[in-house]
């Protein structure tokens, strides 16, 4: 304790600033000072791997499922995702035609599937306009909240 006190406050910003200036001046990547229970550790610049030119273009991270319920744009294709947990049905009954199939043009009001939750059959409207490019879930499969169901191309 007394040693620590005699050394003053290592959280002294001025001292840290001087250390950083020192690092910049001399192009240091790391300083690590430790004494008793005090420690100052500063890292600068790129810690790890440096890739040489040409730098490969990394695709931007996008998420098609992170939205609360509305579809999210990924490049051009939109996704209708499940607003609830339940069982996915493509048609209103075993003998009925599916609500949508690939190639169909749909508007926002169009029911695209049924999700059954707690014995209640919920018709799910598309919410968007475009052409169905994929149905991602099989008839009768369980779906969780936010799970992508149907892909739609809004510009087709």
């Amino acid at each position, binding site marked *: 304790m007394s040693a620590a006190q005699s050394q003053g406050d290592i959280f002294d910003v001025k001292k840290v600033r001087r250390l950083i200036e020192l690092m910049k001046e001399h192009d240091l990547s790391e300083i690590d000072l430790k004494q008793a229970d005090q420690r100052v550790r500063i890292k600068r610049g790129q810690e790890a791997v440096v890739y040489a030119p040409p730098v490969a273009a990394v695709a931007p991270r996008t998420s098609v499922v*992170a939205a*609360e319920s509305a579809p999210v744009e990924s490049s051009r294709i939109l996704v209708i995702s499940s607003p*609830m*947990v*339940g*069982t996915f049905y493509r048609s209103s009954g075993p003998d009925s035609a599916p609500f949508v199939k690939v190639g169909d043009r749909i508007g926002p009001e169009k029911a695209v599937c049924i999700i059954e*939750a*707690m014995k209640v059959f919920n018709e799910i409207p598309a919410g968007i306009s475009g052409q169905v490019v994929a149905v991602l879930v099989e008839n009768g499969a*369980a*779906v*969780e*909240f*936010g*799970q992508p169901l149907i892909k739609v191309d809004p510009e087709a």
Partner: protein
Amino acid sequence: MFKRILIANRGEIALRVIRACRELGVETVAIYSQADRDAGYLQLADEAICVGPARAADSYLRIDRVISAAEIGNVQAIHPGYGFLSENAHFAEVCRSCDIGFIGPTPEAMARVGDKNSARALAREAGVPCVPGSDGLITSEQEAVTVARSIGFPVLLKATAGGGGKGMRVAANDLALASAWQQASAEAQAAFGNAGIYIERYVERPRHVEVQILGDTHGTMLHLWERDCSTQRRHQKLIEESPSPRLAPETRTAMCAAAVRLAKTAGYHSAGTVEFIVDQQGNFYFIEINARIQVEHPVSEMVTGIDLVKAQIRVAAGEKLEMKQEDIVPRGHAIECRINAEDPANGFRPCPGRIERITAPGGFGVRFDSHVAAGYVVPPHYDSLLGKLIVHQATRREAIETMARALKELRIEGIKTTVPLHLEVLANSAFHDSQVDTTFVERMLAG
């Protein structure tokens, strides 16, 4: 035994239930909100289902979504954990109507003990002492004054639907009572949608002592002795221990027997907690029953050697409790510190964020129940509990020494935690001497 259950909770208690199930050979379905999608404990479940966005009201609290997840997860029962839907009698009823087991008491028993006023009536029926107070709800300010005068000031106004200190007011005289009455009922209405208020004598500097109970569906009701949770801050428990220090042996026996009597009167089974306050003279008074597993259950597990969560699942599956009351012999002393993501230096403000590094303590007598790991991001949407550090030693003094050692080993980098506060409490001579009541922490922090 169940083949597969759903865990309708998150964080450390979800992990706790997963661990119990893995030992029992029961498969688990975890549910999660989008805020918890990267939580590591989900990988220990056999299946994980997203039930909604971060906001609890849209995910963990949505009965329809939880039930749907149970249906598509094809489970036989649901463990509700604590908080969220765990004490929601309607949820327990929905489970029953959907033919899904509920790992907890029946909806009827839950409703009976969940309302404080009806719980007090049950206590009187079971011959369990309550704090002197109104026989039922108070309906007018005039009635409040009459009752307060008859039981004697100072009095405490409490919301019948309340919890966590909401809707509570102390009044020292007629004048104070008038404004306290209005504030308490308004607050209760806003917080719980139920303005019902009752009045009790205000017990000064009480200890909070609670009894762990465990019953099966075949009529056996046992207690696992008591826990002392007097080390609180603003009615939030910080440190819990078992046994309760400075409790007279005859008080202890009487209190545990009272808890069992009350639970039987309520038709209760499963795990539960009967809470009491103990005044400075050593009298105990019933306060409420928590109809669920409790955050601090591990301290009772350590001293009795009984796995409460496994027992809870077993009795929910209809198994008989094999043990007898005389087999439940407490051993040594256990202490739990709640490690919260809060900044003690900043008014205990919640401190969500990314945990850069974590070093868990280990060694003899140390248990660390936590769902967090390096890289874990503490979401801002839920309570701030990161984990529970529990120690078990032969004596209270040694338990304190082990806890201090373990707290110093526990390193969490990236966010602020309550570790420094715990170390301060453990170093406090009043805590060492067990001179702790529910006002201790605030007095310590003020001092």
